[in-house]
């Protein structure tokens, strides 16, 4: 079976059906239709994956060209799919995790008046994402890239009646535009350099590329990746994107869309291999992003904000791996992260659902008594992300750290930053778990919302200008028109089974997906052997003994992080306020600085450009117009309307012509 088009066809069909008949199907049938479409896509992916696996390793590649999309002389863009080892892996986890989240969303979005619209967007998102990973050329990937960006915008501002949600969507869109600019320039440069934008042909031509060109291409596509995958300096949109419904946060802003930058760079690994210092830059941007975001995560009180910064931080890990040319590590972490972060987000959604849409963790506490299933499944996610063996996150994170150790130059420092991030990760995730499920005190029973000390956290939740003029209520944005608020008498109840089932399935994967690429023997490197044919670039691993030492250090680090969080938040030996500094709560004021720069000198500069446009460019254009008009006014009296004077003019002209001819002849 080689029908690659079937994979995106299911969600496209689901999207079209929902556009046409979504309202008529209503709640919950529209959701079931959308879920079935994604499940169908998953089934097609599995079938194609099996068919791919049955072929010998050298010919594991299914290409399918549906039609020529842009035929323009030497610039030929086909609407074609490339189903190889890399896109197979991507398709499997996108549709697999996607189907589970769709299922969850049927429960989560129940009774929302816009239920069908939500699933329409969700299916469109899956279709775009599949186009992104399946496209056999850069332009088709760009189509998917823009498609997921548009869906992200639509879904972040899904409850657009709240201005904060609408501006969060706008912020995500505008920030991503900056990255897209890099994508477009990168595509142009690839075409100019290779004369093609087809991945397979690029791969063939890449070994002959000049180092400077490869570096430029890598940097441009890395700019694209920093936008979509929320890295410095463009990460600021992701924490705000939590304004969207929680299934959206899980699907788009944790598991799938934000990893597309990692995918893109992996796809272009034949070029990156020759990109020289661009790789070091990628690794270091990833490392610094990972560290800063982890720092910001440990001072957030909104449960979704913690997870959002955590996502930024984990994506930083993936870029460390990309920069170390450890593409398998990046892909491995992308997959395990998709499982455990989707799990954590869905778990957070279940908690939010049970707590009357309260997102402030200071009002939780002791919830393990009320939400046992959520507690256990989220607990698995917590162990996975904290890097406790044998859960999935440990294996993938450790592979990235080990791969970074021998990078030249300063690989050890890279490894150390990664380790510090891992310790912080264990710390803030333990903090989240304790504040939510432990602590002994059921905070919502005692505290009225007003009595909570207000951390100045308005900057990172709203866009550049909104923080002056939008009333911010200090609560989460997921509060969508459900009038019931968290009251001291509230008794949390477990979310419906429709929401619990995906949690359970994901927790199994979060626990065991480490087996995809166990380090002990070459035979266990399943993922590495699978994707090796499509990935270029070599990274040097430390010697086996060093690897053991590094792994033990990172386990000790994770345990330390957990232990300290336990001391601070469970035993309360240290005042938490000393750790949760405003600088962390405001994510190092990066977003605020952007707002100040763009709002201050930036706005002045833009005004200057606008003035230049008005006073110079426009004035020149208008001047030509008024000049012509003035001249015409002077010349108009010549046209007197008297026929006889025209005749006189013609006569004079004729005489002049004859005289001219006679004089010429006589000379």
């Amino acid at each position, binding site marked *: 079976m080689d029908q690659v088009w079937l994979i995106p066809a299911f969600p496209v069909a689901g999207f079209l059906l929902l556009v046409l008949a979504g309202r008529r199907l209503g709640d919950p049938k529209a959701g079931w239709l959308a879920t079935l479409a994604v499940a169908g896509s998953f089934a097609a992916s599995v079938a194609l994956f099996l068919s791919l696996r049955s072929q010998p390793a050298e010919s594991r590649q299914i290409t399918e060209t549906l039609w020529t999309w842009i035929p323009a002389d030497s610039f030929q863009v086909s609407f074609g799919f490339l189903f190889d080892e890399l896109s197979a892996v991507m398709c499997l986890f996108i549709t697999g995790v996607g189907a589970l989240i769709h299922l969850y969303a049927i429960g989560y979005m129940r009774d929302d008046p816009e239920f069908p619209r939500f699933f329409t967007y969700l299916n469109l998102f899956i279709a775009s994402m599949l186009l992104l990973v399946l496209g056999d050329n850069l332009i088709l990937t760009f189509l998917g890239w823009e498609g997921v960006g548009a869906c992200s915008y639509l879904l972040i501002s899904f409850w657009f009646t709240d201005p904060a949600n609408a501006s969060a969507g706008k912020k995500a869109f505008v920030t991503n535009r900056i990255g897209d600019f890099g994508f477009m320039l990168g595509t142009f440069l690839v075409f100019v350099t290779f004369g093609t934008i087809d991945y397979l042909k690029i791969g063939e031509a890449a070994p002959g590329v000049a180092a400077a060109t490869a570096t430029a291409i890598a940097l441009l596509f890395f700019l694209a990746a920093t936008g979509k995958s929320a890295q410095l300096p463009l990460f600021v949109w992701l924490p705000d994107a939590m304004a969207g419904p929680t299934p959206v946060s899980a699907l788009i802003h944790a598991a799938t869309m934000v990893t597309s930058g990692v995918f893109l760079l992996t796809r272009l690994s034949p070029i990156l291999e020759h990109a020289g210092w661009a790789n070091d830059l990628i690794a270091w941007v990833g490392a610094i992003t990972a560290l800063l975001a982890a720092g910001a995560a440990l001072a957030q009180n909104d449960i979704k904000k913690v997870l959002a910064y955590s996502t930024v931080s984990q994506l930083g890990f993936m870029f460390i791996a990309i920069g170390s040319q450890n593409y398998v590590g990046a892909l491995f972490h992308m997959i395990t992260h998709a499982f455990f972060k989707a799990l954590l987000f869905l778990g957070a959604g279940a908690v939010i659902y049970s707590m009357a849409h309260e997102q402030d963790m200071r009002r939780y506490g002791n919830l393990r008594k009320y939400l046992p299933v959520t507690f256990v499944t989220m607990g698995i996610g917590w162990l996975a992300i904290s890097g406790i063996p044998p859960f999935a996150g440990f294996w993938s994170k450790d592979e990235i750290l080990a791969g970074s150790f021998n990078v030249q130059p300063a690989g050890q420092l890279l490894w150390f930053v990664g380790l510090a991030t891992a310790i912080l990760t264990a710390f803030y995730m333990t903090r989240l778990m304790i504040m939510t499920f432990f602590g002994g005190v059921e905070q919502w029973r005692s505290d009225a919302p007003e009595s909570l000390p207000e951390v100045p956290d308005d900057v990172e939740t709203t866009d550049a200008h909104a923080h002056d003029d939008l009333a911010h209520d200090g609560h989460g944005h997921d509060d969508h028109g459900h009038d019931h608020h968290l009251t001291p008498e509230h008794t949390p109840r477990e979310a419906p089974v429709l929401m619990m089932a995906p949690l359970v399935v994901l927790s199994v994967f979060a626990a065991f997906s480490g087996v995809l690429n166990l380090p002990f023997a070459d035979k266990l490197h399943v993922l590495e052997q699978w994707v090796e044919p499509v990935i270029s670039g070599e990274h040097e691993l430390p010697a086996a003994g060093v690897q053991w030492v590094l792994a033990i250090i990172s386990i000790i680090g994770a345990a330390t992080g957990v232990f300290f969080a336990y001391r601070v938040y469970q035993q309360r030996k240290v005042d938490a306020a000393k750790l949760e500094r405003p600088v962390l709560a405001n994510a190092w004021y990066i977003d605020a600085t952007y707002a100040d720069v763009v709002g201050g000198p930036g706005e002045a500069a833009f005004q200057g450009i606008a003035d230049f446009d008005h006073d110079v460019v426009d004035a020149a254009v208008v001047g030509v117009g008024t000049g012509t008009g003035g001249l015409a006014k002077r*010349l*108009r*009296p*010549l*046209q*007197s*309307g*008297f*026929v*006889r004077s025209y*005749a*006189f003019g013609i*006569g004079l002209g004729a005489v002049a012509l004859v005289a001219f001819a006679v004089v010429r002849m006589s000379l």
Partner: protein
Amino acid sequence: MFTFTGSWYLVLAAAIFAIGAVGLIVRRNPLVMFMCVELMLNAVNLTFVTFSRMLNDVGGQAVVFFVMVVAAAEVVVGLAIIVAIMRRREGANADDISLMRG
């Protein structure tokens, strides 16, 4: 014996042309102006025929036929326009018809 050479005809044609040209400029009645145009055309025709005789080339005579045909067509259109204008307004003065002035 006094003979009429070709130059006589040319001088006559020039005189007729001048009368037509001056009449076109001086007179205000559109019909008279129209007749002046015809005078000029026929003066040119006379020149053509004269040169045709003098140079022994029949081409000049052929051109005259073309001029006459075109003049006939022009008369049809021109007269129709003049009549239409006359119906719409009092009197017959070319200077009053100056709606297209700048």
